[in-house]
């Protein structure tokens, strides 16, 4: 993707001036942003602010996938939707806002759930994926496809007054993947969603903004990431010390997604996803055969 030729117009120079004068970005960084193709999976509490700041920063191609429509109970935290767009597909609502914020990026709407049938084809068009979803099944699917496609994942999650952030498969084939850190899914009864558990709007907003920061760092290759370690950032709005930075394990040699498992038939491949052998919902304790997102 890096060979794509891009130029910046005068309007773009003016628009991005305040970030282009940063040594961490510069003209080169701005060109890298314009060349980059980022997919945001989920246009909810995480995806909204992440999309706003990545569009603002001048990412060249911004794809958004979500099959949901805007509801009024979303609006305390999903700040790029609006009351007048209740009932509209979230992807359409998001792009309406984004295009008015910055008309330059190429916005790609995917009004559908991400599934084992379409994930490989959709994600093939992107260099980086932001996991802004809300269920472990889809998180495993995004991971497995991103590993196959060799693209990094910026993954975040939030619930109640807490948030978590981790960058995975970065750089591809070096950093650990989601399965390296969570080889086994949580029992279904331990999984709580925002509907059930509640969520403080700016908490999930904070995590989405952090995803945008990490995405910009990856796209502009600063700092150069060569070590196969990752950190996990915890946020607890009501904690005595609200931020924690945890040092996570590296890639696992026997990982069934990114490594060489002892039993080679367990290795996750393009084929095992496409032919339906990987049932992510059943893996996470749901009813087999149910589509996810």
């Amino acid at each position, binding site marked *: 993707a890096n060979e794509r030729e891009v130029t910046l117009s005068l309007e773009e120079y003016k628009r991005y001036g305040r970030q282009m004068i940063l040594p961490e970005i510069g003209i080169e960084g701005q060109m890298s942003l314009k060349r980059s193709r980022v997919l945001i999976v989920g246009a909810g509490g995480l995806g909204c602010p992440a999309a706003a700041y990545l569009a603002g920063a001048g990412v060249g191609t911004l794809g958004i996938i979500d099959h949901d429509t805007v509801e009024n109970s979303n609006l305390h935290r999903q700040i790029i939707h609006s009351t007048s767009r209740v009932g509209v597909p979230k992807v359409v609502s998001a792009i309406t806002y984004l295009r008015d914020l910055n008309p330059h990026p190429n916005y790609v709407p995917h009004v559908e759930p991400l599934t084992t049938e379409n994930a490989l084809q959709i994600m093939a068009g992107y260099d980086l994926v932001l996991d802004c979803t809300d269920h472990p099944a889809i998180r495993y699917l995004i991971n497995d496809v991103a590993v196959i496609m060799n693209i990094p994942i910026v993954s975040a999650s939030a619930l109640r007054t807490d948030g978590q952030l981790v960058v995975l498969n970065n750089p591809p084939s070096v950093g650990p993947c989601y399965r390296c850190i*969570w080889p086994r899914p949580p*029992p279904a009864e331990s999984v709580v969603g925002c509907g059930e558990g509640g969520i403080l709007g700016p908490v999930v907003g904070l995590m989405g903004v952090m995803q945008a920061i990490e995405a910009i760092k990856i796209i502009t290759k600063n700092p150069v990431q060569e070590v196969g370690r990752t950190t996990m950032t915890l946020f607890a709005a009501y904690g005595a010390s609200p931020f924690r930075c945890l040092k996570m394990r590296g890639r696992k040699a026997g990982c069934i997604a990114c490594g060489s498992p002892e039993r080679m038939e367990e290795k996750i491949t393009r084929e095992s996803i496409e032919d339906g052998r990987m049932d992510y919902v059943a893996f996470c304790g749901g009813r087999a055969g149910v589509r996810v997102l």
Partner: protein
Amino acid sequence: MNEQQGPSANGVRSNPISLNIEFSGGLEILFSNQRDHRIQLPAKDSSGEPANIMFLVHYLCENLMKDRRKDLFLLHGGIRPGILVLINDADWELEGEEEYLVQDGDIILFVSTLHGG
């Protein structure tokens, strides 16, 4: 601010071990809705072996956990999938995992992975 917590020197000791136990990501709900706990752990387990992380985990489950849903913390004899264990802010896999011998002053953090977005 000035309290210093260094691990005890390499040595034989039978005093209980002082530990800072923290819960995050909703696990605190299982522990009286309290994120931070300071506990004294017996230095040896029932068979006289020095206290390791798995001994601590069982000790917490029996002595600190008020919630009756024990399998949301311990499942099939191990930590429930979806919970990360951090020893002084490092993944326990980097520290020897279940075998790690806890040290006086250690901060042991249990994080339940969140999925909401």
